[in-house]
């Protein structure tokens, strides 16, 4: 019966439904745009590294914007972190002073990073050779760009021996960019080449070699470096990314600053949550206008059908029947408007996507608009909810109408 009523005033029902459809389409489009942007950002972050990692830095964050306070990361720190729940591994890192590869000339500026075998930084990005292994000494895993300076191709660089000069003035072209102490040369064998997308200067060398180079640069012993300077950082690996927050807390309790992609992702999620809320609000205004349209249509419908309501009540319709009848009509507007709006939103997203790609062929290949099942169902539920809310007062008015007064209504 309600469907019949919906179809009776086709133009009016159609226009009201169109209002809901436009509002729903706008909500879908805006949230799909925000979701697409969020997905792209998240994908970029995930490509940077592992969400299970927490990096421990050798300083304590300053309170209330004050400068950070330097702290020393020692083997005692490492031991304490290994005892923290959900910690799968703790990898020490020591950065020796900047240097260069003699065979590569002025362009071969390097950052010797002493790491432990299996460290997260030295995983899965090899172009040739192997990663560092236990017992390695005087070896290096180097970036592809440096490998090409010392050999015709990355494959040919593996097995080659190069001179790594640590310390002294380090120049990039004619500009001094760093370096300290007296330069000292170390002969290292290239055992692996990694993709330089990760770093164009990092020389991954055994931790003990880096400590030795750092110590000799400053006239100390490796043990002296361990105790006074401490490690440059630690990579703490959680058993699961959901436990990263607990590990971050433990690091902070030990008095160290930490960084994790997981935290960045959470902050981005929060930021995008607000962004989506704002966009949904803008779409919501359109739906609010549509809701006023529904309410207006329903009020008119109740007025026009006053006598009909009286007749139905006289032959046995209960107040609940009448309310259901009018709410069902509002629901049809919501459901049809929601479906139409969802279709419009999806089609609109596709069209805008194509136009953007035609105008700028270098656009990120990932989807610009992302409509997941959550958004699709949510948009339908929203349209239905708005329609029912808008239809509630007119339906209640119809429900409360006196049968006799309605029968006498002209």
């Amino acid at each position, binding site marked *: *019966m309600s469907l*019949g009523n919906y179809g*009776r005033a086709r133009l009016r029902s159609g226009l009201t439904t169109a209002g809901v459809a436009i509002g729903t389409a706008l909500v879908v489009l805006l949230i799909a745009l925000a979701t697409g942007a969020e997905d792209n950002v998240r994908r970029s972050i995930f490509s940077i590294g592992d969400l299970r990692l927490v990096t421990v830095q050798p300083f304590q964050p300053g309170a209330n914007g004050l400068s950070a306070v330097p702290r020393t990361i020692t083997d005692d720190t490492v031991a304490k972190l290994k005892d923290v729940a959900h910690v799968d591994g703790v990898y020490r890192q020591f950065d020796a002073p900047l240097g260069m590869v003699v065979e590569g000339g002025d362009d071969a500026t390097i950052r010797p990073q002493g790491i432990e075998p299996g460290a997260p930084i030295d995983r899965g990005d090899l172009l040739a050779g192997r990663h560092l292994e236990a017992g390695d000494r005087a070896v290096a895993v180097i970036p592809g760009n440096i490998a090409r300076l010392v050999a015709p191709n990355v494959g040919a660089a593996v097995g080659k021996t190069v001179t790594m000069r640590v310390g002294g003035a380090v120049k990039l072209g004619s500009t001094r960019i760093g370096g300290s102490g007296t330069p000292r040369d170390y002969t290292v064998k290239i055992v692996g080449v990694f993709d330089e997308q990760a770093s164009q200067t990092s020389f991954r060398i055994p931790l003990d070699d880096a400590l030795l180079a750092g110590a000799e640069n400053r006239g100390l012993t490796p043990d002296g470096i361990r105790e006074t300077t401490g490690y440059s950082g630690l990579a703490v690996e959680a058993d699961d990314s959901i436990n990263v927050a607990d590990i971050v807390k433990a690091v902070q309790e030990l008095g160290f600053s930490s960084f994790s992609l997981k935290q960045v992702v959470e902050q981005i999620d929060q930021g995008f949550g607000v962004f989506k809320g704002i966009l949904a609000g803008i779409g919501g205004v359109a739906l609010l206008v549509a809701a006023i349209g529904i309410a207006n249509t329903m009020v008119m419908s109740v007025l026009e059908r006053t*006598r*009909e309501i*009286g*007749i*139905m*009540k*006289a*032959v*046995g*319709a*209960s*107040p*609940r*029947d009448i309310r259901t009848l009018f709410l069902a009509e509002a629901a049809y507007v919501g459901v049809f408007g929601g479906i139409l709006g969802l279709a419009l939103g999806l089609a609109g997203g596709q069209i805008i996507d194509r136009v953007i790609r035609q105008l700028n062929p270098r656009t990120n290949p990932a989807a610009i608009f992302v409509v997941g099942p959550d958004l699709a169902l949510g948009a339908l539920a929203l349209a239905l909810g708005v329609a029912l809310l808008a239809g509630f007062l007119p339906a209640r008015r119809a429900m409360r109408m006196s*049968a*006799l007064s309605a*029968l006498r209504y002209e």
Partner: protein
Amino acid sequence: MNAPLAVEAVGLERTYSSGHATVAALAGVTLGIRRGEFVAVMGPSGSGKSTLLNVVAGLERPTGGTIRVDGEDLATLNEEALARHRSKRVGMVFQAFNLLPRFRVVDNVALPLAFSGVPTAERTLRARAMLERLGMTARADHRSNELSGGELQRAAIARALIGEPAILLADEPTGNLDTANGAALLALFEELHAHGQTVLLVTHDAQIASHAGRTIRMRDGRVVDQ
């Protein structure tokens, strides 16, 4: 006649207030109508006869006294129960027919069953059977605006009878009909009565009232003769 009472009113009152003025449409009506009776309520305009019918139909609530229809005290019923009373216990025929113009005749007749939870197929079947009984089969699929006055009132009677009510209520049912159609309608009431249907008919016309088995006369909200 010892049939149980279909309608029993005791000291029934219905007053309307407008500003400081109070009008008593029913001022202590006491009457009884037995099952199977064909009763006409007669009186001049403003005598309270339509109000009495509306109270029996459950369209209006009395302001005093008691009214029982088929044994049920209407004062104790809430709005939902009153709606069920209208759909199952009474059938109402109006002077203005009150059919829904956008519905087919069969759908109009089936309407009360829709509010009693009867499935669509069954109510259509029952509506067609009722129309056949009243000689309206040919008009079942027409819209009400395609019917003559007499046909409209027959369709309205079919709708009133579809729920097999204990009592058929008719408020000036011949008021909008010509003489021939009016006479045919009264013949139909007599026929229904002959088959055991309780009929309560309100009219201001003594000639129409003469078709009933008994006439209750009202004046100024009171029963003056029954």
